[in-house]
């Protein structure tokens, strides 16, 4: 693996070794991958002390999850680590689909601008994890324990007892809460003896990460995702080409169900495939070769008492759609504010069941969507293939068929429409930002400074008030109460470019009118947003008693 130098994190003997009574920690995160590290960062920034256990001492081996979605970038930006990712990653938003020797369809994942982050960046998982670790190393209240391997997990004393193996031998700790983010082959899941049910797909796929100094096919324009059905260079199967950082390209070949994984990963088999695709004279170096199959499956429940599963440990999907890593980041985003409130005694434990409900539905959606993509890409019988090829033939001339072409439906923020934390929507709102939806970004001005809406929505519960003038005295009093409540709500005013700022509230100027448009707002409209920036409730006027009730609901009190 040439282009990336793997960091080696220092193992240290920790103070919990050899104690007569195991040390007790508020939260232990098992697994220092993208999801575990994101969760640790989120909790630490909410003032919860966290211990992270990882059985290795470096980042992801191989580029693995390379497509980082806008929603993940927004979450990482809230946690203060999106900038190095943006600087290193390759931005893209257009995908092109080819059938045989011609392009039949292309899609733009972010047709609407005016948002801080692009639809996607491609960035190798090892970089993502490196930047998360670097951010964690400068964060108080987090302890990263490398080469600490989980070997036992038992509920005890109203918490969980963990047995850990290290270079200095074994030790035990207790935790009030455990987040199991230890990946598809989760040790925590195995130790609890939990079923991981779903569907196994038979087709094998080859990943070749290659480094090329010259872009393939002379494509010097913006980076795009290229996908082929049945191309001349790989007849009968599909292929995918994607650019990553450091001039590394991800090539993914469908190999069919009978391919021999050992054989197909050998350079003397891979290089001819690549030359057929890129041309005999193309210069490239192989960085990472891997043959994989995949499964779509999930745990029945993500919460098992005080052990809560997130990411691949909880659910696995087909890779076409970038819904693995990105859904895990949304898991962490969903879980951590709830856990922080429960640990702080500010919300009942059942708030954590809403994590299971909300992210369980998200997992079902991701399984369903990626299964459909896989079924389209790898037709399992003659009639499926006949329909698939008919769609591809019709796509050039007929718009309806283009909508059916499925080379992966790429990850977006899951709308938590059915959540019990949502306050049912009042009449007269456009559907776009209904309760459960993740807040959409827009440009704002604060004084003379240009900023983004989402960077103003950080930390706790927030309200966006589309002001029509100063608040009436009873509302102003209610505003102060909301701000100082045990679970505070901070209200931001949104005004048009010509309006005066609102007294006693930070005022965001909706410089381009995009907030009002995207949120279907009129003067008086109020949005209540959760700490993970999802909409909890919205109204056409500010009624403090309704805000109180919605807040109780969104924190699991009612």
């Amino acid at each position, binding site marked *: 693996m040439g282009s990336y130098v793997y960091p080696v994190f220092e193992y240290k003997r920790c103070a919990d070794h050899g104690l007569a009574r195991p040390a007790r920690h508020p939260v232990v995160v098992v697994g220092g991958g993208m999801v575990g590290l994101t969760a640790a960062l989120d909790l630490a920034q909410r003032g919860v002390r966290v211990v992270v256990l990882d059985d290795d001492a470096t980042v992801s081996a191989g580029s693995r999850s390379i497509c980082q979605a806008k929603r993940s970038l927004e979450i990482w930006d809230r946690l203060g680590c999106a900038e190095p990712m943006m600087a290193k990653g390759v931005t893209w938003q257009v995908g092109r689909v080819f059938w045989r020797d011609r392009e039949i369809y292309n899609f733009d994942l972010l047709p609407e601008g005016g948002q801080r982050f692009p639809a996607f960046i491609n960035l190798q998982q090892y970089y993502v994890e490196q930047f998360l670790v670097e951010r964690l190393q400068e964060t108080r209240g987090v302890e990263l324990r490398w080469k600490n391997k989980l070997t036992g997990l038992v509920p005890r004393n109203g918490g969980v007892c963990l047995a850990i193996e290290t270079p200095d031998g074994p030790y035990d700790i207790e935790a009030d809460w455990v987040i199991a983010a230890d990946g598809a082959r989760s040790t925590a899941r195995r130790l609890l003896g939990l079923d991981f049910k779903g569907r196994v797909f038979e087709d094998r796929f080859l990943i070749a990460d290659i480094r090329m100094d010259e872009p393939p096919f002379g494509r010097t324009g913006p980076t795009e995702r290229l996908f082929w059905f049945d191309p001349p260079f790989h007849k009968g199967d599909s292929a995918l080409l994607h650019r990553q950082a450091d001039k590394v390209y991800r090539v993914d070949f469908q190999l069919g169900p009978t391919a021999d994984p050992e054989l197909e990963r050998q350079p003397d088999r891979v290089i001819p495939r690549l030359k057929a695709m890129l041309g005999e004279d193309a210069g490239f170096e192989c960085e990472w070769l891997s043959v994989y199959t995949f499964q779509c499956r999930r745990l029945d429940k993500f919460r098992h008492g005080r052990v809560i599963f997130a990411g691949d440990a909880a659910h696995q999907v087909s890779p076409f759609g970038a819904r693995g890593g990105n859904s895990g980041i949304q898991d962490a985003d969903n879980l951590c504010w709830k856990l922080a409130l429960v640990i702080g005694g500010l919300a009942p434990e059942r708030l954590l069941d809403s994590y299971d409900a909300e992210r369980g539905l998200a997992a079902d959606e991701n399984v369903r969507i990626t299964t459909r993509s896989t079924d389209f890409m790898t037709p399992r019988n003659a009639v499926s293939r006949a329909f698939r090829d008919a769609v591809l033939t019709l796509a050039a001339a007929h718009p309806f068929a283009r909508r*059916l072409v499925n080379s992966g439906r790429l990850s977006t923020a899951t709308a938590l429409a059915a959540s019990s934390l949502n306050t049912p929507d009042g009449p007269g709102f456009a559907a776009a930002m209904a309760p459960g939806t993740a807040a959409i970004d827009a440009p704002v001005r604060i004084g003379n400074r240009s900023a983004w809406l989402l960077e103003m929505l950080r930390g706790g519960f927030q309200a966006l008030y589309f002001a029509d003038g100063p608040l009436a005295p009873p509302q102003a009093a209610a505003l102060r109460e909301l701000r100082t409540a045990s679970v505070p709500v901070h209200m931001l005013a949104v005004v048009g470019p010509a309006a005066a700022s609102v007294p006693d509230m930070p005022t965001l100027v909706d410089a381009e009118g995009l907030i009002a448009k995207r949120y279907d707002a009129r003067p008086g409209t109020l949005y209540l947003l959760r700490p993970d920036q999802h909409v909890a409730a919205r109204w056409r006027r500010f009624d403090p008693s309704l805000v109180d009730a919605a807040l109780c609901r969104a924190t699991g009190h009612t």
Partner: protein
Amino acid sequence: MAGKLRTESAFANPDEFYDTLISAHRDLTEAQSAEVNAKLILLLANHIGDLDVIREALAAARESV
């Protein structure tokens, strides 16, 4: 030629339609699938009930075959 056949996407969720179609053939032999397809075309053609539309659709379907 401005025909009567609409080929803009009509489904709110096209992927769900496609999945429903493919699932209807699960566990069938090729001959059984052909039978299902024939019946399906007859049912939908009758539902459409407009021979101009059906002639256009047939022409589009035969193109490039």
